């Protein structure tokens, strides 16, 4: 006799998943450690050395101070990008005239390197915290707009018609039909925007900032302090994994709980 096919097998599955993941992690660290035996520490420092450095940084308070400084900047820029990008993308995608008009603007924004935005930011905002925020914004914005725009074009016309017969206002149609439809597009956009925002904030922090992970990374890199470079990189990655697994993934699971599973 079989158990109902729909019954959740979560507990067993997630335990073995955690196990397999830890196994992967251990494997990676072992490989790193092995490789480090054959490389000088200034090319590939050993995991132990990087750990020690990480502890030193944490003890001095440097680690969390700089991580949170950068995180704050990224979040601020990201938030503005979402606030502009989501309505903007929907507008461009749902209004054909506007969309056609702005079509060539997006690749331009996409191409302009963050360094150039940084230059503009410095001209406009000088040495204020707005500078790195602006750079993050200008990087995150095309990511979000592009995805939301594309998502808007994929909205099912049948549902828009339904909204019309229900006499929904434009705003209501956007909120009740468009937003849920573009949610998966928004999620990939947001995930990317956050990642890339983080990356460029590091670049922006080498200009005019004197704190933040980017500043410290650049400093370590200029001095060829490879273990510090690794330590900061690992700290960042750990933070990103926590955000992904602790926030984004569960949120997504909740929002997309209506989806029918494809069994393959």
């Amino acid at each position, binding site marked *: 006799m079989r158990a109902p096919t729909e019954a959740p097998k979560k507990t067993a599955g997630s335990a073995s998943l955690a196990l397999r993941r830890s196994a992967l992690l251990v494997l990676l660290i072992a490989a790193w450690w092995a490789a480090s035996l054959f490389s000088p520490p*200034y090319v590939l420092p050993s995991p132990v050395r990087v750990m020690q450095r990480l502890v030193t940084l944490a003890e001095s308070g440097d680690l969390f101070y700089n991580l949170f400084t950068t995180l704050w900047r990224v979040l601020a820029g990201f938030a503005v990008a979402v606030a502009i990008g989501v309505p903007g993308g929907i507008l461009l995608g749902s209004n054909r005239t506007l969309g056609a008009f702005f079509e060539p603007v997006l690749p331009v924004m996409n191409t302009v390197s963050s360094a150039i935005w940084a230059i503009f930011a410095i001209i406009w905002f*000088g040495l204020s915290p707005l500078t790195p925020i602006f750079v993050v914004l200008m990087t995150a914005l095309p990511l979000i707009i592009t995805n939301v725009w594309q998502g808007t074009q994929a909205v099912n016309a049948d549902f828009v018609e339904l909204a019309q017969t229900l006499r929904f206002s434009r705003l209501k149609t956007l909120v009740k039909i468009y937003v849920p439809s573009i949610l998966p597009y928004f999620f990939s956009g947001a995930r990317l925007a956050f990642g890339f925002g983080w990356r460029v904030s590091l670049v922006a922090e080498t200009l005019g900032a*004197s704190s933040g992970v980017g*500043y410290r990374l650049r400093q370590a*890199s200029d001095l*060829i302090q490879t273990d510090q470079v690794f330590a900061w990189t690992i700290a960042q990655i750990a933070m990103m994994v926590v955000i992904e697994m602790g926030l984004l993934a569960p949120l997504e699971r909740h929002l997309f709980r209506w989806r029918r599973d494809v069994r393959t």
Partner: protein
Amino acid sequence: QEKIKVGYWTSGFSVGFGAVLEAGKFLEAQGLQPEYIKFSDVNGPTKALMTNSIDVAFGAPATGAFTLGGEGAPLEVVLVTQIAEATFVTKDGSPVTSLADLKGKKVGMSPAGSAMYAITTALLEKNQGLKRTDFTAVPGNEGRLLQFLSQGDIDVAALRAVTLASVSDIKLKPLGNVVDEWKAMTKTSAPPILGVAIVHKTFARQSPQAVVKYVKAVMEATKFGSKETDKASAILRSSANLDAKDATAYARLWDQFYVASLEPADIATLKTMAEVFRAAGTIERPVPDTLFVPTYYEQAKK
């Protein structure tokens, strides 16, 4: 003819020298067959040496060489090639009149961690009694600093001579000069050092004569640049992608930033700097004396 892979940073303080060395065929004149590998990251050549991708480099930041030396990397510093020069300037009409007035001001300089930063902060502390916390250091490259200065975001900036020469539309007032301050601080006549020529030990073991030839070529090129200003300027224009005006300014200021020597006084300066850097936390480990190898220079001088 011996093959040699030469790396350099095609920007900032080494672009001019690199162009002259390359276009003047100085290495070829020494019987070497060079392959030039260009980097637009200041530490690019050092990192490439670290992985043995190139044989020799010039204009490599001294700080990077010190860090790697402390780690026991197989590198040798065979020549001092760039002087750490900069002038503290302020906008004309600013209330700041001397370096002593910097207390509480915003000072634009190279980013913390760089050699220039360590040198300037050390100078300000020793000569003017200004602690690190007495002023705000604003990092940025030269173009940015100039812009901050004109926007009023900062009060003072430490800028290189070439940058100052290219500025025509803002009136700037010099407050002091890093080389002079350094000499006053160390009470010697040796200038502070920014860039060095380094070689990989493997290459040096294989063909020490090639290193000698390389050092000789660098010395020749340095001499050529300081004497033949017009020819150097022409090379800069054609090969280094510089404007006529910039090229002339660059060539005229040649002696202020290019040297080629490794006299005992230079080694002493390097060691002093290493101590200053270590005190400032810029580097962590002591620099072994064996990092500096003057024998090639001695031979090349002959």
